[in-house]
């Protein structure tokens, strides 16, 4: 196990290096720059700004400097907010995105797994079709439709939850539900398919024959195996939850990392863009590793490679 984890970490290092390199060169080769705004800046000031951030140096020198500061885990100063570093921005924005993502993940699991099990038990009955249709409707409505709809109903009409901003638990409810819905749908489908297969297997018949109650058969014997695909889905889901929250953060005016990223991309804030992408890459690689470990714990048939 330790060997497996170590190997994966060693493999990840060149990937992170690759991400840093590609983002660096994509950004530099693209036209435009952080200090070329519509407002005309006197050329002297422009040159001073460029010099201050080392943008007047040859590209390779800049690249070398960037890499060496990365080794010190320093993502550099933000060009757009000169008083803050990229590390500050991530420290500020990420906990917000993380809370939102985790809340959404919990909601997605709580909605998706029971729905999937229910549909599998009622396989081919009207109720299965109905559950799966409702579930499918969930994927067919994009979050930026569901979000405003929820705001319209629960904030502007019923006054149950605040429509936007961040800080209080009640402000977490609507964005988390909006973010969770599409994932609960995927989880429901995965659970249903897997449960259908498992409910046909011998060990389930054995459990029934030994007199286990239907409830116990479903939730203990069958679900244990039925959750495997859900677990492997969680790796990419964490990825999607973090990136999907870009839109949610925009709708609900939440000061998360996704919003900082989009803003910094539009204002060509090189360092913030590179820093955020790099940060998320490390996060996702970590999340996938955790999922792989979990998978092996849940399914002892898988060998460590």
């Amino acid at each position, binding site marked *: 196990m330790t060997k497996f984890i170590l190997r994966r970490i060693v493999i990840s290092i060149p990937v992170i290096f690759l991400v840093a390199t590609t983002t660096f060169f994509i950004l530099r080769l693209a036209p435009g720059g952080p200090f070329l705004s519509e407002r005309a800046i006197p050329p002297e000031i422009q040159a001073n700004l460029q010099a201050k951030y080392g943008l007047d140096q040859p590209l390779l020198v800049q690249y070398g400097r960037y890499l060496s500061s990365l080794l010190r885990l320093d993502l550099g100063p933000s060009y757009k907010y000169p008083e803050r570093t990229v590390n500050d921005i991530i420290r500020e924005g990420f906990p917000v995105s993380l809370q939102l993502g985790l809340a959404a993940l919990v909601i997605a699991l709580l909605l998706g797994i029971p729905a999937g099990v229910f549909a599998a038990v009622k396989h081919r009955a009207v109720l299965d079709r109905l559950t799966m249709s409702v579930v499918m409707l969930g994927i067919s409505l994009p979050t930026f*439709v569901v979000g405003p709809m929820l705001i319209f109903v629960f904030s502007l009409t019923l006054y149950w939850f605040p429509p936007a901003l961040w800080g209080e638990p009640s402000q977490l409810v609507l964005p988390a539900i909006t973010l969770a819905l599409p994932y609960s749908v995927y989880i429901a489908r995965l659970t249903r398919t897997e449960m259908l297969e498992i409910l046909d297997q011998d060990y389930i018949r054995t459990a029934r024959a030994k007199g286990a109650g239907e409830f116990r058969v479903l939730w203990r014997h069958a679900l244990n195996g039925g959750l495997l695909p859900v677990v492997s889905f969680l790796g990419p889901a964490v990825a999607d939850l973090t990136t999907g929250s870009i839109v949610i953060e925009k709708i609900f005016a939440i000061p998360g990392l996704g919003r900082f990223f989009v803003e910094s*991309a539009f204002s060509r804030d090189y360092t913030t863009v590179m820093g955020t992408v790099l940060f998320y890459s490390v996060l996702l690689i970590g999340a996938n590793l955790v999922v792989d470990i979990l998978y092996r714990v849940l399914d002892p048939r898988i060998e460590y490679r």
Partner: protein
Amino acid sequence: MKIRVASIPQLAPDPVISSLSPRAVVWSRLSRDPWMMTCAIALGAVLLSTILAPWIAPYPYDQIELRLGASAPSWNHWMGTDTLGRDLLSRCFYGGQISIAVGVVGTLVSLVIGVLYGSISGYRGGRTDELMMRFVDLLYSLPYLFLVIILLVFFSSSILMLFVALGLVQWLTMARIVRGQVLSLKNAEFIQAARVSGTNDIGILFRHLLPNMAGPIVVYATLTVPSVILQEAFLSFLGLGVQPPRSSWGTLISDGAGVMGLFPWLVFFPAIALAVVLFALNFLGDGLRDALDPRQRHD
């Protein structure tokens, strides 16, 4: 000594084997299912309306009538007009063209890359396969939407860039599926027969392997189209998709969502159009997968 030739046992016609080809079985399963047919018809209708947009749209999509402002649905404008007085029905028809085109082209890009990559990886096997699949694993753990956003912001957000960027995101899963199929098929007897009869690798791949894995590929492609359409909509919502005055369903919805409290029809109709197409494609994809599943042949 006399050699006794064993008599060849007479093969009795098996009453269970039906004469239907696999394709006919799939078709009969789908066509017997009223849900599937409803989805197919709905999808066909929407597709047709977007293709025929230049002839059936009552107004040009960019004809501004400020005097009308945002007017509610009426006889002259079935879906109402947007804040600039443009006819929403016409804009939905034309928007569909772009949304569906992005979905289809993005899927095709991912299909070409994924099938080539996956089949090479599976067919070569061994170290090549190991290396190529590790690479896919690694790419899986990249924040894609972020990279797409970077590409679109820093280069132009033209439709062409959109096609390429979205296709590049989608090919990974396709590559995995194709590779798995190739691995399971490449030692089958009919492939060995083809090899013995002198077919080269390319011939085996395209003439023999690909046709036999069309099922899973078609199913996954059907499910990819809606996800690409949805991603285009996401990007449009962030202001990175199709640029005005052209619009996709995504841009229409995102424009409408801003004024939802005042003019709800502006978000309602494009959202319905998008939802119908996504719902139908997802449902058909799932149905196809079930119909193609050989384990369900008996019912």
